[in-house]
Every structure is written in C-alpha cells, then in structure tokens.
C-alpha cells in the first residue's frame, strides 16, 4: 500500500523543471552543506516556528 510520503515523492518527481519551485542549479555538497543538513537533523524536535526563529538566530 502506498504511503502519503510515496504519493508526495511521486508528485515531486513530476514537477516540471524550470518552474518557480525548481532547483536553480546543481547542489554543492561541501562542508557547509553537510553542516546545515546536520543542523536541521539536530533541531528536528523543534516546532516549525521555533526552528524558523533559531535558523536566523544562527547568523548572530
């Protein structure tokens, strides 16, 4: 049976390239990218508003 995540994944794979939501270019997976990915994993228990605020707090 398909899960909601499977359906969503399929929908995303059919998104046309070049639209406003399409990635603008190749993903550069450098140390900064891995650090950001790790930051999101470490803070996954926060609710979205707190995570949003904390994300920009990082710049200080």
């Amino acid at each position: 049976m398909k899960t909601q995540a499977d359906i969503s994944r399929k929908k995303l794979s059919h998104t046309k390239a070049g639209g406003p939501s399409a990635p603008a270019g190749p993903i550069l997976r450098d140390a900064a990218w891995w650090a950001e990915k790790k930051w999101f994993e470490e803070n996954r228990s926060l609710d979205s508003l707190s995570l949003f605020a904390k994300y920009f707090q990082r710049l200080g």
Partner: protein
Amino acid sequence: MAHPVEPAVFLREFVISLFESRLLNGAISVDTYHNRVAAIRKDSNFESLSWRLFKDAPEPVQVDGYGLLRIVELREPDGSSFPFLQGLTQAEPPAQKRWTCFVGHRFLPNVERSLRFNLVHLLSPYGIDLRWSGYDLSARDVFAEIIRGIESSDLCIFDNLGTLNRPNVYVEIGIAHALGKPMLVCEYMGRRKVPDTGSIPSDLQGLFRIQYWSYQELCRQPYFNLPLFLDRHKLR
C-alpha cells in the same frame, strides 16, 4: 499595519517556503518536508502569533526563547509593498565582525528605492553593510571606483532587472568573478512586465543564481540561503 493578506495564511506560507527551499537544496528529506507542512497546518500557534506579528509590526515578537520574529514591509519596483517575515538576532554583531556587500543593479529610481531598501533590511541586522554601484560605466573614474568597490567587498549581489540595453551589471559580474568574490546573481524572469531585461549569459549560469518573478520572491531566496552562503564562504 493593514495588509491584503490573512495573517495566519501569510505566516504559514512563509514558514513553509523556508522548508521548501531546504527541501530543494537537499538539507531536509521529502518526508520531513511533508511532516512539517502537515504540522504547520494543524499548529494553532500560527493563528495567535500571526495576529501579534501584524498588530505589533514592525516591533519584534519573541518565539519561545529561540529568537525574535517581526514583520516588515518591503517594496516591489512599482512602489507597492509586501509583508516579509524576518528572524532577528538578539543584538547586532560587533563592528569587527561586519562585512561589506557590493550591490550591482540598473541605475533606475524605482529599482534603487526598492532593491536597496529591501537588501538593507535583509542583510544589515546580520552585520552585512551594503555598498552601491549604479552609475554610467562610460565615465572612466566611475568605472575605477566600481572596480575598487567590488575589490574591497566581501561578497556581491547583482540584479539584472531592466538591463537589456544597459549591460553594466554583467560587466560587474565579470569583474567580481575574476576577483573571486562570492556572489549571488539575481535574474528577473517576468519579462512580460519588464521587457527591458536581458538574461544572464550562459557562461555565468553556474554561479549562485536566483531566478525571480517579483521582489517578494527575490527577497526570500537570498534570505533563506544566507546562513549556508555565509558558511560556504567563511563569512561568519
């Protein structure tokens, strides 16, 4: 502050757009994104916080101890305004931690008034001061001044709105590229509205490029990518 948007709808859409941008750059998974979206739609805190944010704007509102958020009004090139959700640091960075960003764009009053105003709001709270270009490159000393401005900056932002027959901004992108400056290149895609806009040369399309249809969109993408961009170029 009166706005033609429903506060909770605006707040939810704005926060979801941060997660969408992180989904597209690969920092979060598809499952995580959809879990976030579902939780945001059910979270009643968005109702109460959104009304406070709009009622108190532009005063900041504390979110749980994780930081301050506020709503500011930014500007489209046509002079209209749009709300923007800004996350703030507790205090401005000290003077020794400040960076300079060179901004290259078409020298038009409506672009100046809106783009500069928007970028100051987005970048200055995080210790990034702006330096402008925008003069006629035919004056030799002005050209030298632009080169000095790019050379002495830590990063650059270029916007190609209205540059079809005024390719100065592409010359500036080339200078910044030759000098190895980190840069964000913003490409206006809504040509029906502003026919006087060219496109980024194909040789430059590997740069950190943001395609946009409105300044509302232009403001979000650099803002959401700012922490990653600054880390990537060791600017904090």
